[in-house]
């Protein structure tokens, strides 16, 4: 059944990873392995963070169209980052070690998203259209305010923010890898331990209460996990809007299962395959003619439209 397809998926991921590490290496392994290894780890982290946050978000909102990025989590992260640079001034900001800055941003995003999305989910539960509209308005609002801040700040400081505002897979912030791995690992452990409760939460708040699972508590825990995971992926490669939607839809096709014990690893591996194989093709075959994020967002955007139209027709 569905869980058996996890093994070929894992095989495919392994092949993609090996190809990424070895293709066109040119023999200088002492340089190539650590250099590409760090980028590979980053791609894997981003892939897992995005897919897991998307699965979790779709579980608590009970839909398969919305993702944290569509709801503006990434945009909120960039906004907070811009706000911090504006508030502190770029030099003071740069004097702090990047890990401290990153953790500071993570804490800010967790707080802000619990505040914003925690109340929103409490009120708009089950109202998909309201969630979509709010998400689109949030996303636009966050990026507009970010744009406004960026016009106010010094051009040198703007350069700091700009790096985080666009998706990029070729220049990854590798100095955050250690702390990012720790955070992602922590989130994955929590999500895995919650996997059965997540299955129940997906039935809806009333059914969850009936089965003895507190939906409000589940929502808050899950929102915290999402905020941490989104922080990691946005800090490493910037906002990628439609990757989560694309890979989770694929996962539901490949391994149709109601159990998070299947869908979480499936989505994570598919997400990693898309990123690693995609980046290999972009770097080695197409010699960086197009950024991977453009392709992912293009295909993912089509999937989003397709799902939306299908959902509206039903």
């Amino acid at each position, binding site marked *: 059944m569905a869980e058996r397809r996890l093994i070929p998926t894992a095989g495919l991921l392994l092949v993609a990873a090996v190809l990424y590490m070895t293709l066109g290496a040119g023999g200088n392994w002492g340089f190539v392995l650590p250099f590409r290894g760090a980028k590979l780890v980053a791609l894997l982290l981003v892939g897992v963070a995005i897919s897991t946050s998307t699965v979790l978000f779709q579980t608590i909102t009970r839909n398969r169209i919305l993702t944290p990025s569509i709801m503006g989590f990434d945009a909120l992260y960039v906004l907070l980052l811009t706000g911090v640079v504006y508030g502190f001034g770029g030099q003071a900001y740069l004097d702090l070690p990047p890990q401290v800055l990153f953790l500071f941003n993570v804490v800010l995003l967790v707080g802000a998203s619990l505040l914003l999305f925690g109340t929103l989910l409490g009120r708009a539960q089950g109202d998909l259209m309201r969630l979509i509209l709010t998400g689109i308005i949030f996303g636009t609002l966050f990026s507009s305010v970010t744009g406004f801040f960026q016009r106010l700040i010094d051009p040198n400081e703007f350069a700091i923010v700009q790096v985080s505002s666009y998706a990029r897979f070729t220049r990854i912030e590798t100095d955050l890898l250690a702390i990012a791995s720790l955070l992602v690992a922590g989130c994955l452990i929590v999500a895995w331990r919650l*996997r*059965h*409760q997540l*299955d*129940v939460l*997906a*039935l*809806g708040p*009333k*059914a969850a*209460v*009936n*089965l*003895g*699972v*507190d939906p409000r508590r589940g929502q808050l825990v899950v929102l915290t996990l999402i905020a941490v995971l989104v922080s990691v992926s946005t800090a490493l490669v910037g906002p990628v809007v439609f990757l989560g939607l694309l890979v989770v839809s694929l996962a539901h096709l490949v391994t*149709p299962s*109601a159990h998070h014990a299947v869908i979480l690893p499936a989505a994570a591996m598919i997400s990693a395959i898309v990123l690693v194989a995609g980046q290999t093709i972009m770097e080695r075959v197409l010699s960086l003619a197009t950024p991977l994020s453009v392709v992912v967002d293009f295909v993912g955007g089509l999937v989003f439209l397709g799902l939306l139209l299908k959902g509206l027709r039903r």
Partner: protein
Amino acid sequence: MIRVDGLSYRIGEQHILSDISLDLPRGGISALVGPNGAGKSTLLSLIARLIPIQTGRITVDDLVVGQCASDILARKLAILPQSDDIAPRLTVRELIGFGRFPHHKGRPGVDDRRKVDAAIEAFDLEPLQHRPLDTLSGGQRQRSLIAMAFAQDTDYLLLDEPLNNLDIAASRSLMARLRDLAEVNNRSIVVVLHDLNFACGYADFLVALTAGRIGAMGPPSTVVTSQMVAKVFGTKAPVIRVGDRPLVQV
């Protein structure tokens, strides 16, 4: 026994329930009836901790609702909420399997599988067990949901308007199954019913709510009279008797 003591509930300035005290007996079917907006569903939701209690106290046997751990109550009492769009992609068997969650917490054992099989058999769902819920008719879906609550293996089973959108054949067969559950499996069933005649025909105990207060309470054969219908529902309908059961002429 479910004991409700001094229960009031309001939304803003609107009083939904005003100082309700009642005992729902252990065993048999208790029906909550009343006009639209009388507070029936609210009362049921409060008993099932779907909404938090504002004032008053509800106990289910020795468990205090709102104070005892939710997963302990989940092994004592199950609720079937009003027509829910519950996970349309689940198969009937997967849905019923979720009924065992309070017992196995995600790791189903042999006993859990046996109870799911028993629920599927008891509700004649074998031919449907691998079908996704969104391919079923309203009656079949309702039957699957009740089978899930049955598999939850609780002493108390609460149902909020289970006959909504069901035709007369499906309604009668559902009520007959509930009678079976009460008599054969010794479950206590509390059901919100829209149609007073279904309550007269199948319930052992009847609570009529009107504007958030208790209008009448007792066995249907003594409680349901044309005066009671006039008082609770505000309409003059003659009540005749068929055997020992009252019947409201509509």
